[in-house]
């Protein structure tokens, strides 16, 4: 009976979440704040009290007061509104970059791990070269090279994320390749592409999710650093990095212009988001609505774990 099967599954996810929250209060709080910031970014036009780009020369450099809770900047723009709209740009860039970089990197990793041979060898060298650059420096160079703008920043950050997806997922694919059900697929004459798509890829979903959430925080910091250094999303668009860069154009920065754009940075919550994902993932995998885990499930997770542990945590700053 499929009908009554669904509610218990829901409840078990919920219960698992509650247990998780009780055991890791800090992570749970972080996760909630992270979600709130995402909600704030989505609802920016309704939440923000003012237009983030509207200048007001009668109200410049004002400290926080009742009219503008976070004060105003050098040209009288409302800092609170800019922080809220900044969340939009910053989060959009980070999500897009991680989605692009981790997805392409992971697909590349699946191909490397499954196909092996010369393709794998060459790919490994390319990834090694990409990882030889400090993240922020590579992102800066690429972002300037392809012209500063929103897409350029996203591509630049995505390229720095490629090797992480590639390496972690490759090691998962290698362990899955040896599973007997994959061998059975090969024996039945399935093409390499079909096996990768139907048998290897599903096993990579869990590590992919963990990887993506882990790197979200890194991407947010890189974006902010690019903006801060003047090679990110061009002004006057509000991003947290741009606002910080603007604040030091004056001789003495106004404290409210420095304090507020930095403080909501959800990067601090991103480790907790990734923990939450890591702990919730088993329950998602166990839920009946998704295809049941194949035989390799128990084996592929430990295979992914050491790879995740060795993945560089390196952030921009």
């Amino acid at each position, binding site marked *: 009976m499929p009908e009554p099967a669904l509610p218990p599954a829901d409840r078990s996810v919920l219960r698992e979440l509650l247990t998780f929250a009780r055991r890791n209060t800090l992570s749970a709080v972080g996760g909630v704040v992270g979600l709130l910031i995402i909600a704030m970014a989505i609802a920016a036009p309704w939440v923000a009290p003012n237009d983030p780009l509207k200048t007001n020369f009668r109200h410049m450099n004002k400290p926080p007061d009742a009219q503008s809770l976070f004060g105003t900047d050098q040209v009288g723009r409302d800092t609170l509104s800019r922080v809220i709209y900044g969340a939009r740009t910053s989060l959009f860039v980070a999500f897009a970059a991680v989605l692009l970089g981790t997805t392409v990197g992971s697909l590349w990793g699946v191909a490397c791990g499954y196909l092996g041979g010369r393709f794998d060898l060459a790919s490994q*060298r390319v990834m090694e070269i990409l990882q*030889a650059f400090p993240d922020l420096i590579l992102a800066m160079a690429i972002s300037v090279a392809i012209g500063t703008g929103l897409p350029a920043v996203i591509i630049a950050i995505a390229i720095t994320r490629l090797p992480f997806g590639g390496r972690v997922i490759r090691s998962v694919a290698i362990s899955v390749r040896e599973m007997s059900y994959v061998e059975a697929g090969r024996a039945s004459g399935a093409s390499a592409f079909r096996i990768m798509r139907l048998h290897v890829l599903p096993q990579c979903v869990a590590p992919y999710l963990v990887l993506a959430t882990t790197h979200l925080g890194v991407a947010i910091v890189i974006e902010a650093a690019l903006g*801060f*250094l003047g090679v990110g999303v061009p002004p006057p668009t509000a991003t947290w990095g741009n606002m910080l860069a603007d604040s030091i154009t004056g001789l003495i920065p106004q404290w409210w212009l420095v304090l507020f754009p*930095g403080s909501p940075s959800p990067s601090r919550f991103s480790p907790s988001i990734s923990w939450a994902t890591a702990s919730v993932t088993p329950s998602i995998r166990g839920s009946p609505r998704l295809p049941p885990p194949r035989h390799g499930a128990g084996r592929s997770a430990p295979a992914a774990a050491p790879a995740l542990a060795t993945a*560089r945590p390196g952030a921009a*700053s």
Partner: protein
Amino acid sequence: MRKYLVRRMLFALGTLVGVSLIIFVVLRILPGDPLVAILGVEGIAKMTPADRVHIMHDLGLSDPLPVQYLHWLHDIVTGKLGKSFFRGDTVAELILHRGPISAEIGILALIVSWLVGLPVGIVSAIKPNSWADNVARSAAILFIAIPGFWLSMLIVLALLFWFGYKAPIIIVHFWESPWQNLQIVIGPAIVLGLAQGAYIARMSRSCLLEVIGEDYVRTARAKGAEERTVVLGHALPNALLPVITISGVLLGFVLGGSVAVEQAFGVPGLGRSLVTALIERDIIVVQNLVLLYAVIFVLVNFLVDLSYAWLDPRIRYA
């Protein structure tokens, strides 16, 4: 051991050649005319085609790309590293002048990270889930998550507001005036060191916890060794391997992070030069500085690999 060393060295060298190729290609696809960046749009308009050819030739930008690349390799080998478009000095001079400040920041940050991270990790591991452990872990998350350059700005502001203090923003080398030099480098070193220290604390905690659970540690306890000897003498050395690795890996984080942190503190180090050169499209400076950062990163990871093989014989024969 020698065979392993040679193989790793060839690997590192190959990687660096690849790195230089990528830098070269990425910077040569820069949109826009480098001369516009140097002379401005008006300057370009006033220039005769002959002038243009002449200047391009002077800058070494008129040769075919493979020739330019070989020229660059030649410059690297001879240590000249080419000239800035805007300033008269060569990149080698720039590195010699500003490099020491950045290097000092990096080394001090490394020292800070171990001095802070390791003790915190050990205390956490001795009494897991105690209040001290919880405080340490929360602090670690905080320092990992806070962007270094933002923390730097807050520190600069706080010092200015409450103490009216501003660190000097000129280049003072250690051998000229140690006290002034220290004031310049200490801020960035602490900010970068604390962020790394947070990773080191987490890593050493988890590694130590794992090792403490092993049989030989129980044996050490059973023979009546003091807890201090057991943890520091028996368990710690085996727990340190991954911590050393992560410390080398974190260097990428320090190298990248130092660029933004130097900017925030107003420290005139190499990172500042790199940012300025990027914004000015000063290709020659950019390509050499980016290569320098990559060389340092690859070199340190190479050394980490070596230390790993030296500390753990299993890796040599794998």
